[in-house]
């Protein structure tokens, strides 16, 4: 499902015009991003939790040249599936 399909579907269900839906979706994502950048996890009931994780710095070796590189630490967004959705995925599998 692409972004457009998603917005169309949401517009249809909520009864809002599609341009309004697109703007709302945009704002919603900005909100989530802002919360995350403040290191605040965003939890949606029945869906899951968006959170920020810290990747530690690490050493890598280029296999051909043997050059060692230090990869700096970074923060990455992550998503954790909620139990309800997890159960549904499990049933889909069966």
């Amino acid at each position: 499902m692409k972004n457009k399909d998603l917005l169309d579907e949401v517009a249809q269900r909520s009864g809002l015009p599609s341009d309004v839906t697109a703007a709302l979706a945009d704002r919603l994502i900005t909100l989530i991003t802002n919360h995350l950048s403040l290191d605040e996890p965003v939890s949606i009931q029945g869906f899951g939790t968006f959170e920020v994780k810290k990747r530690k710095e690490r050493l890598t070796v280029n296999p051909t040249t043997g050059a060692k590189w230090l990869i700096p630490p970074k923060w990455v967004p992550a998503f954790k599936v909620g139990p309800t959705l997890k159960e549904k995925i499990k049933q889909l599998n069966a």
Partner: protein
Amino acid sequence: MQKKRLLQDLVDGLVVEGDLKKKDAEEFVRHFFKVIEEGLLADRLVKVNGLGVFKLIEVEARSSVDVNTGEPFLIKEHLKLSFIPDTPLKEKINKPFESYEPVQTTSEPINMKETIPDNQTDTPSVNEEPQAPTAPQKPLDLGLDEEDPFEPKEGEERQPTIQEMLAALKEENERQTPTESGKRNRSIVVIILIALGLLFLAGLIYWSMESNRKARQERALKEAMMEQLAVEVEPLTGQPTQDALDSLSILAAQENAAAVKQPSQPSTAKPVEKPVVKPAPKPTATTAKPAATTAKPATTTAKPAATTPKAVSTTTKPTTTASKPVMTTPKTTTTSTTTKTTSRPSEVTVKTGDRLTLLSEKYYGHKVFWVYIYLENKAKIADPNNVTAGTTIVLPKAHPTMMDPTNAEAVKKAEGIQQRILAQF
């Protein structure tokens, strides 16, 4: 970790920003995630611009062990939700750490080590090998002088020997310079290369001379002032000159080795041309004296390196090139390959990052000859594309025609074998 934000916070944010009712906003957010969920279950992939991609990926069945009972059991294949964040989101989150970039930690990457010395240090390194055991031992008088001046007492007598050495070096060098003007162009390029590499040696000689002279001055001064303390002074003054002589002795040893190898040349290769040609006025030799004098040991030592292996391995190559001064030769492919083969050990332990092709290129001059290495070590190598590090492999003897990188037919044949081998993997 800060306060957890819930759906209600998102709704509030939407209402504050927008001009819609709270109820509509809440409905919108609920629908939004509901549609994502349904799309995920239906298509197994939902793409949300600005947020990322939600994907269901299959996890293969695997066996595990019950932690409590220790009984093995099978984890069934299942689906796993994976979330790949969009770049804008990723960048926004990582803003505090944005400025960090990967840094290379070691100052000496391995490949640099291997590539740089190839044309320059290769030749000096070869002279370490005992090249001409059969040659008559005809050491220069300088070489013999080395034995006794080692005593720290005879600082005075050593000075002439150094000068003698330098003079002899210069003489030798002038005799060595190639006369053929046709070879000039190539030789000049090589001279420049060698001169660069051996400027360091020039500095060494200069330094040793300097310190020797200083020591001498000091010694003379002290002797004049207090002759009765000479016994104490002598070991002191001898100390720096000893150091200087150590470094010089290295040079002298090289010179000695060169002298030993020189007679070997006519004996191994046919004496078509005499290596000693009439002295030629060479611009570099006269203008840059230290450089020219030091360039000498390298040229003489590199020469036997090119000649002796040729007599052993590639018999097809003309020996006339061998007896020419090496100044001209390193450009030709024959010498470059032969110097490569000289340094080939009979066995090699595979390191991390080694490939059969790389080894082949290094030791046989062409990467396609890895097939012969592989065939020789078939028992040890499970997969030629992925040789385990630490495996010791035998390097087969280079066949003069079959493994000649300049021979197109040999290369073609090896390529044929390569195709057959690769078809099995």
